């Protein structure tokens, strides 16, 4: 069997030059369109996800004094490639009062695989807990994992909160990568 690089005709130096030219030209001619396509293909890597800004979510009075969490939608402008949608729901946050003037915020997105966590006010017990219906992870009110072996690799994701003018609750809304043991901000 003769590999294509060593045919019987065109031997010697001339043959070598001819073959080299053929390989170089053939390679380059195909490389050019492929490279242009791949550059366009990689464009999504340049695009940033929204979030990271403080958003006003609620006023302090609507949060129960006893520390029961409440879920609030996050409404902001959303960009989808060429379209811009003003004021759309882009996520949700649990807010919970921990002291007169202190508020804690938790992402509703489960750190395991991204389902939406719900709050369950359990009868009898004093406080309820957070529960993820997808793979049955439970979290305490502070977002800590309650199961002995939790499907979730980390506690629920807390968000930065600021209480402004003593009444407005502002939250720095961010999404985090699911599945990782550490909190990694999605960019």
């Amino acid at each position: 069997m003769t590999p294509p690089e060593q045919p019987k005709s065109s031997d010697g130096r001339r043959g070598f030059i001819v073959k080299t030219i053929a390989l170089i030209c053939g390679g380059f001619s195909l490389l050019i369109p492929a490279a242009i396509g791949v550059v366009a293909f990689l464009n999504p890597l340049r695009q940033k996800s929204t979030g990271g800004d403080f958003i006003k979510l609620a006023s302090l009075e609507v949060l129960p004094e006893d520390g029961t969490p409440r879920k609030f939608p996050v409404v902001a402008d959303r960009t989808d490639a060429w379209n811009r949608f003003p004021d759309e729901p882009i996520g949700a946050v649990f807010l919970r009062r921990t002291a007169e003037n202190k508020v804690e915020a938790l992402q509703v997105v489960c750190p395991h695989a991204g389902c939406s966590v719900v709050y369950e006010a359990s009868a009898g017990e004093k406080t309820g807990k957070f529960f993820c219906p997808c793979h049955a992870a439970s979290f305490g009110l502070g977002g800590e994992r309650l199961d002995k072996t939790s499907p979730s690799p980390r506690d629920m994701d807390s968000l930065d909160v600021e209480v402004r003018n003593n009444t407005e609750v502002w939250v720095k809304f961010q999404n985090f990568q699911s599945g990782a043991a550490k909190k990694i901000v999605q960019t």
Partner: protein
Amino acid sequence: MKTLLNWLDQRTGLVTVAQTCLNRPVPGGASWFKVWPCTIAFTFCVQAITGFFLWMYYSPGAQTAWESVYFLQHEVIGGWLLRAVHHYSAQTLLVLIGIYLVQQIIIGAYRAPREFVFWATVLMGLVTFALLLTGDLLAWDQNSYACTQVRTKFLTLLPMVGGEFYKLAIGGPAFGHLTLTRFVALHIGLFGGGFLLLLVLHHVAVYRADTAKSKSAEKSTPLWPDQIMRNTVARLVVMVVILLLALQHGVSADHAGVALGSPADLDPSNYYAAARPEWAFLGLYEFSHLFPGELAILPIFCIPGLLVCVALAMPLLGRCRAGHYFNVAFTVVILVGITVLSFRSVAKDRADADHQIAIADEIAQADRVRQLARSPEGIPATGALTLLRNDPLTQGPKLFKQHCAICHDHLDAQQKGIKAEESSAPNLFGFADRKWIAGLLDPKQINGPGYFGNTAFKGGDMAEFIEEMLADLDEDEQKDIEKLVMALSAEAHLRSQRELDAKHAEARQGRQLLLDDYGCTDCHKFHDKGKLGHGTDLTGYGSRQWLVGIIANPAHKRFYGKENDRMPAYAKDILSDRDIALLVDWLRGQWYVEGLGIGD
């Protein structure tokens, strides 16, 4: 390595196939004249590669097609180049097939045993036309929409089945989402796939014919490496040509690559009159004009169909010497004919002033929509066309021409702009700005054609007042009038005068002059002073609200009341509130400007 190849070959036979292809005999030896099939296959490869990546960005839909192409062209790095390479490689493909065909005809290479090589090439040419036609629409801009509209309408020329064919082609009774989904499927699946099949058929036919011939030919060399070297060099040259074509308009400007027009507007009143097919179809386009309308089926279907039949019959005709000469002569006549007709079409358009204006308007509109799409509001879900429809700069002149330019001019100092059919009302260019008001209060101008000259107010109370009281002013009085003009013009809150209006001291003096010294409020209302009923209300004169009011109903007591000349009340049945607002915003210069926004 060797064992690996052996194993691969044993299982699949691929190595043997590759070797057979590389070592296949080239009768007559390697030659630069034999590079065409390879360049055609290569250019199709470029089409397939770039098309695949374009596909990732394309969103077929009446409100997303143009938008997704816009996004690719302007927001994706290198997106414009991807589009341009795809576009120009299609053109190149057509040219290469043309060259290859003509060469086959001239040297008589279509004769037995190469009939199938020739037929496959002819069919590849036809499929390339189909690729161009279906691909053209996908950008969904004004030109491609208008061209495709016309082309598909031709289907209705077909007897009996015309209407049905039309509906089948565009996916329904009218253009829309389904036209685009259909054209994508045809473009990629049917014609892209079809071309690939023909290419394979062509190469198999070449292989068979060459192998048969090499047995008898005295000299033949293997394909690798001599012929392949020539082929790949030719391929690189083709690629460089495509790149040069793609780069001809530079790399950074908005117009790099292939220009994207303004989004397709299905509203027939916005039909793009200057739409022209691509160069490859110009000959046919011009040819069709040689026939009267009732016979359009001849140049569109019958004659081209006949020509294709003759082309397909060439291998059979060419069996005798006379037939071959006929084939060559026929080809020359067709090529010359197409060239002459194409140039004639271009020359006609060049000489047609209306055509040039329509093109310039469309370019301006494409620029405008790009600015709007880049604005912070971006493209709404209803598509980019909404941006143009809500844009005072785009809609204002159209509305003005249709409804106001019967009487009103809109001409700047150089007399450029919109000329009235019969100028018989004030020129509204720069309405209520300082210059306009100064002219109104100028005894020399008030009874001229720019103001009251051709109206019922010529020589009326206001004109009389100006001619008597404002003529032959001394320097101080002139200064006073200037201040009065400032005060009144500030009522309009024009964006163009925002900085000027901010200087309060002089305007405040002007207000006082208006109220006291010149007694304007004897006839006019101005804020708290004066009454409505005689002169027009000067409160907020020229402001958005004031203009909306006067256009809605000039006979309202706030404006001309019973003395209204001929101006109709537009709010009643003539213009919608939205149109009036667009017109007013345009008159006041209140449109989106890059970097400035819309203003208040």
